[in-house]
């Protein structure tokens, strides 16, 4: 099964509402129990304003920009992100907006450039997913 994507196609994406419970859930699911994701004092010791989301949670959420359009997560063959800014998650939660655009299609692989924005700040850099297409 392969995905339908066209060059220049804009993938509208979605806004993720992240709560503290989401970070705890991801900690359990991923096995990453680094306390900077759930302990105020551990976060403060590193100079962070509050606990931050797992970079891998942001990376995993961002890929849904692609899979919600293509419908087939198994068609993703490569994925890169740089973690440029932390995503602080205060008690009241945080909103991250994800979107994408198809920047290249070559030899059966589409490259989708993904944006992850916390207000007006990009939290992922150079994020690109590679997806098998027809």
């Amino acid at each position, binding site marked *: 099964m392969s995905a339908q994507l066209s060059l220049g196609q804009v993938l509208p994406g979605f806004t993720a509402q992240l709560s503290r419970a989401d970070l705890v*859930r991801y900690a359990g699911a991923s096995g990453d129990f680094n306390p900077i994701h759930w302990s105020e004092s551990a976060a403060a010791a590193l100079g962070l304003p509050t606990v931050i989301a797992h970079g891998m949670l942001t990376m995993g*959420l961002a890929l849904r920009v692609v*899979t919600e359009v293509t419908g087939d*997560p*198994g068609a993703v063959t490569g994925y*890169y*992100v740089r973690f440029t800014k932390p995503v602080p998650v205060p008690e009241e939660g945080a909103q991250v907006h994800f979107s994408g655009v198809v920047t290249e299609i070559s030899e059966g692989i589409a490259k989708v450039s993904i944006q992850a924005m916390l207000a007006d700040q990009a939290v992922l850099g150079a994020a690109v997913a590679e997806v098998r297409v027809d």
Partner: protein
Amino acid sequence: MPISEAHVGRSYPATPPYEVTGPKIAEFAAALGDADNPAYQGTDAIAPPTFAVVLAGAAWSSLFGDPELGLSLARTVHVDQRFDWTRPLRRGDEVTAQLRIEKVRVRGGAAFITIAVDLTTTAGEPVAVASSTLLHQEVAQ
């Protein structure tokens, strides 16, 4: 001796086999807000692509547990992450993860460390490679 260019090429024993189960796939998909995706359900479920981090993360402990390198997770920042998949991880796969040090660049008290973790089924089929750049800060002298 702290980590240095001399450690490039070092690799660690593969982790014990990890079985990718249906409930674990469902748990991970739910943590990504994607529990309703049919790809992650049923007897022929695949795992969300970034599920590979569950396996790669287990291999990281061999790096941080290597007394020669003197690395501390608390002083480490995850700079970037890449995955290359040969095929998706599937329910029922038994997978091992083996970490190797690809590149080390030391600048003052900081080291940029590039690692690659090979995920391979117990039948010997390569499934994915998870590559990471880590920035490790030495304790200030």
